[in-house]
């Protein structure tokens, strides 16, 4: 165990040295006489325990303790006080020291035990603090995740929905990918996938906001053009910085099952998945939401839905992964389609998992997917 003794009195220092030698602890001791030396010493001597006298030439009392605590945050601090200053010892413990010992009143056994316990207490305290921070962060993530990744709002429509979402490696926090599925009163199933540019809690929260807004606008029966205008307006009002924009792709599946209507606002296309193959469908895109451009119309297109076809919505994180370490080649949309075709015989959940596994494998060497990824697979069920 490394112990740093901060004590300006040579006699007291000698005493401590002897106590340590007799305590049974295996220690490596370094002795310094000022606080300035102590703060320098912890740089190359990461002490587990600092024994601190509170009467130093360059610092006294609690301010001395504060400085030690901040320059050696991982060390347990045991304060050495005189017989007449037990109050100061107690105050030091209240201010963050692990313990105090009264000079000249301690036997070697007790001295060794006090140091050992102090180090244990400090470790437990640090672990608990780290756990607490982690717990708060994961609660925060779970809240955002619940908001971003909803339960489909389907009442009667026999639609099988398989979705996956993962935060990117670039940040442990979720980014702004969002998706949703809602059945309108006429039985048409509406689905959306979107991507708020950037990463972090603000973008994730904005993603939640846009998802709920979209859901509300669909349920209130707005036309698609009108819906996008309102969504654009909400984004502009809610974003935390004027450079934030969002891309969105929506589809409508009318209950006759023969067609699908697709609308893109700056978003990649959709995959049309049949048991035989996978094709990328990229109708004319309209403008992403929140750009400095007024009066936009979003082209809407309709596609005849092939027999047994499913639709796969995704965000660009799925195909932006690098193929080799330090290389320039990215998977790209063409690479994604090729991998998807290898999974074409699978359905629903299994298709999505297999596709993600293939994308992971293809980009593993290049560092995996850095951006967040969302995928949603929709297919009419057999009746």
């Amino acid at each position, binding site marked *: 165990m490394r112990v740093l003794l901060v004590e300006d009195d040579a006699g007291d220092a000698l005493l401590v040295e002897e106590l340590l030698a007799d305590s049974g602890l295996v220690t490596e001791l370094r002795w310094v006489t000022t606080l300035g030396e102590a703060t320098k010493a912890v740089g190359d001597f990461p002490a587990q325990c600092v024994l601190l006298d509170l009467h130093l030439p360059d610092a006294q009392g609690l301010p001395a303790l504060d400085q030690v605590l901040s320059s050696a945050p991982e060390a347990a601090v045991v304060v050495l006080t005189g017989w007449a200053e037990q109050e100061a010892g107690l105050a030091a413990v209240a201010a963050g020291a692990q313990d105090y010992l009264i000079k000249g009143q301690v036997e070697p056994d007790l001295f060794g035990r006090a140091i050992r316990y102090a180090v244990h207490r400090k470790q437990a305290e640090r672990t608990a603090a780290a756990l607490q921070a982690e717990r708060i962060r994961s609660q925060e993530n779970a809240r955002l995740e619940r908001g971003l990744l909803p339960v489909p709002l389907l009442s009667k429509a026999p639609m099988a929905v398989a979705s996956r979402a993962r935060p990117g490696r670039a940040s442990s926090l979720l980014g702004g990918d969002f998706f949703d599925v809602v059945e309108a009163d006429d039985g048409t199933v509406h689905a959306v996938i979107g991507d708020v540019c950037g990463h972090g809690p603000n973008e994730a929260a904005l993603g939640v906001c846009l998802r709920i807004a979209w859901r509300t606008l669909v349920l209130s029966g707005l036309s698609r053009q009108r819906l996008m205008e309102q969504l654009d307006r909400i984004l502009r009002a809610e974003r935390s910085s004027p450079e934030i924009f969002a891309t969105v792709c929506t589809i409508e599946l009318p209950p006759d099952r023969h067609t699908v209507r697709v609308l893109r606002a700056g978003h*990649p296309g959709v995959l049309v998945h049949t048991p035989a193959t996978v094709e990328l469908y990229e109708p004319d895109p309209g*403008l992403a939401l929140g750009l400095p451009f007024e009066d936009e119309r979003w082209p809407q297109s309709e596609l005849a839905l092939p027999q047994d076809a499913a639709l796969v919505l995704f965000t660009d994180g799925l195909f*932006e992964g690098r193929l080799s370490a330090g290389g320039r080649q990215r998977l790209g949309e063409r690479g994604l389609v090729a991998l998807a075709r290898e999974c074409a015989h699978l359905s629903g959940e299994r298709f999505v998992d297999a596709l993600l596994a293939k994308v992971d494998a293809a980009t593993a060497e290049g560092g995996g997917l850095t951006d967040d990824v969302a995928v949603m697979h929709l297919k009419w069920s057999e009746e």
Partner: protein
Amino acid sequence: MDLKLDHRTEGQLTIVEVEGEIDVYTAPRLRELLIDLVNKGNFHLLVNMEKVEFLDSTGLGVLVGGLKRVRAHDGSLELVCTQERILKIFRITGLTKVFGIYASVDEAREAHDKDK
């Protein structure tokens, strides 16, 4: 990966040379440069994207943010880009309608001079 940035002034136009990858890691540096140029009174920016190898949505956001900044001073932010994969990103997001995009610095300069 790497992003190299350089800039020079030609008459009223400030040409920003960008080389490498503009992504979530490097985009903040481009943002800083654009903000700095605008703060120093350069309101007509031409960003040369010919040597850009990758551009993600964070990078697009930085260009959009730059455009908003120069517009606040009646300025302009235009791009030079002929690479199909980068152009595709501008097309998908609809940004071809927002940015003037030129095939070369000379072409952009001529168009700019004519505008005045």
